[in-house]
């Protein structure tokens, strides 16, 4: 695969790993949070931890859109799906996310709700067009990467005068979440630097990370999702720390600029506006961290269209997703991990999405827990 294999080259990886080992100061512990679940997945899938020295620790962040959805929002989606006139279109991951009392969209579907797995917002638009008798609702989740496609779908639906299409909006923003983690760090985890996701910055640019470097003195490196990208970002963070610098650096120059994609930003600004606050799973309520549809697009807002009230949601009290999402605990430190909670019977959302820290550790990395115990 051209343009992919080059970034997975084992020989280059060994060279980079050797350079990291040389530059990492044995007197320092480097604690880097990869904000995004995509990076968590790449780190686990390619076994990147095995290439890092013991004093360079990766802390998994909350950047997994499925993981940070509070249970109440899942309950609301299930309630929507159960309305007889509604066809709820969703990405596959969300089907298995546990709501309150053991409910999920998958179970609602089995019990008769019309829930359909789609691969893009445009699939949902197509269903709305071909089935005018159904109220088609798209379960919109994700950070700044998936928000422009949702904005595009809304504008298309308006242009085509689709009266039976709406979205259940759960789009959230990256910078407020990082701020939330940094501001709660008195009870949280010490972080020496951040790895920022390239796809988010392809939309918003690197500029929104400036405050974390300036205000909080944390180095940030925006990087891609291939394993060599991640290794190189680790090296760049180590260099900044060794040199006493804290700036925003862009490893992913092949697609990310400082200002980002203006057209995508304009599309988002046209359709969405900030919520006063959004309740994140694990991080709690964060001001100006979520998006909702502007009043001009109220007709496409499922929450208003179906008079959907906020539901509180009930989580399993033993579930440590919250602490794991803030980087305070590792997946294996949760009592439920691998016992009551597995990808087949997830009790927390971090065990569902392939980007979730628990699912990634269970799927790719749990053999290390046994190695650790044995040694």
């Amino acid at each position, binding site marked *: 695969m051209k343009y992919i294999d080059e970034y997975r080259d*084992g020989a280059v990886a060994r060279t980079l790993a050797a350079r990291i080992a040389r530059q990492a100061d044995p007197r320092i512990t480097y604690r880097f949070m990869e904000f995004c679940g995509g990076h968590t997945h790449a780190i686990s899938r*390619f076994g990147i931890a095995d290439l890092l020295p013991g004093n360079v620790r990766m802390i998994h962040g909350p950047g997994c859109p499925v993981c940070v959805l509070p249970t109440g929002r899942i309950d609301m989606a299930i309630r929507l799906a159960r309305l007889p006139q509604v066809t709820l279109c969703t990405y596959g991951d969300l089907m298995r996310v546990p709501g309150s009392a053991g409910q999920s969209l998958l179970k609602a579907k089995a019990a008769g709700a019309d829930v359909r797995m789609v691969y893009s917002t445009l699939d949902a638009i197509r269903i709305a067009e071909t089935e005018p008798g159904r109220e088609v609702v798209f379960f919109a989740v994700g950070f700044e990467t998936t928000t422009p496609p949702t904005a595009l779908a809304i504008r298309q639906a308006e242009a085509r005068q689709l009266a039976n299409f709406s979205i259940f909006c759960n789009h959230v923003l990256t910078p407020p979440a990082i701020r939330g983690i940094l501001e709660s760090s008195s009870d949280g985890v010490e972080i020496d630097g951040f790895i920022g996701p390239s796809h988010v910055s392809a939309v918003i640019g690197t500029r929104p990370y400036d405050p974390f470097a300036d205000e909080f003195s944390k180095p940030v490196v925006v990087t891609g999702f291939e394993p060599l990208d991640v290794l190189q970002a680790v090296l760049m963070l180590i260099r900044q720390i060794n040199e006493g610098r804290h700036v925003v650096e862009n490893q992913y120059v092949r697609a990310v600029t400082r200002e980002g994609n203006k057209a995508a930003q304009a599309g988002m600004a046209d359709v969405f506006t900030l919520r006063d606050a959004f309740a994140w799973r694990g991080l709690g309520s964060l001001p100006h961290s979520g998006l909702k549809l502007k009043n001009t697009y109220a007709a496409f807002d499922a929450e208003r269209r179906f008079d959907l009230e906020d539901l509180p949601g009930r989580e399993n009290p033993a579930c440590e997703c919250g602490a794991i999402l803030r980087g305070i605990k590792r997946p294996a430190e949760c009592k439920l991990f691998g016992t009551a909670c597995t*990808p087949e019977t997830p009790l927390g959302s971090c065990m569902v999405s392939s980007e979730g820290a628990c699912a990634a550790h269970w799927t790719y990395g749990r053999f290390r827990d*046994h190695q650790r115990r044995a040694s």
Partner: protein
Amino acid sequence: MTIAVLRRLDLSRGHVDLSHGAGGRAMVQLIADIFHSALDNEWLRRGNDQAAFDVAGGRMVMTTDGYVVSPLFFPGGDIGSLAVHGTINDIAMGGARPLYLSASFIIEEGFPLADLKRIADSMGAAARTAGVPVVTGDTKVVERGKADGVFIATTGIGLVPQGLDLSADKARPGDRVLLSGSLGDHGVAIMSKRQNLSFETDLLSDSAALHGLVADMIAVGGADIHVMRDPTRGGLAATLNELAHQSGVGFRLEESAVPVKPEVAAACELLGLDPLHVANEGKLVALVAPESAEAVLAAMRAHPLGREAVQIGEVVADPQHFVQMATDFGGGRIVDWLSGEQLPRIC
């Protein structure tokens, strides 16, 4: 059996209706004109409710499988050929020589007769090529909406050569893991034709009957071949995890040795799938004692269906039964079972 009073089936524009499953003349005609003509052999010709045949003494295997693949016709095959290959392969993985198949069709009212004939013909061709006749069958028609086109169930029996007893609990640490060719071709070929995914690819399903390859392997490896499996649903990952648990062992694989075609790798990348989880219908994995591994591998490579055979790892002692893999990139990971459903109705 020909029944003169009936008008001929309209095989170009006609559809299956409920009378074709009702036990009357229309059903007899459907069976004769579509199934018997496509699958013709001495047992079917006798027109009994059962096939009678002599068997040599020895150890027999029996297996059954249902086929609900969607779409019914896909690049490199269709539900008819798949229903022959899949069941033959389940017999062959026991080291057995497949002898006879049965086939049961559940057809939805309104299904085009032309498609049904195409499927039966394909099934007949696959059975003849494999040398394994379909000797008895059944046809049911259900109302529109109660099935999706056609579902097929096939059952097969086979004879195990003397001295062989392959079983999933017989893997031993040190056994070599041999794979007959590239992974994921069938699953990706099917996905490329799904309505909500459709992408352009020249990739064909690998659907094939593997008993010839198995016979060649057994000829050189004999009882040193401890286990064989065809990694269908859930892919190689599911197969190796099952074997790890059934034999109480672990696996260590080398990612760099696992063959994946570039188009499969690209499609998986695009869809967020792991090729190790994607279904195959013409590949096998064999766990072979180290002393015979090279000879078996050479025999595989000498067969057209095993030309790209490789050793991808070995069986290790592991109380946790992990399937571990050294990544190309230089790290380690687990190869776990797929969670949830990757894509329904892949076979």
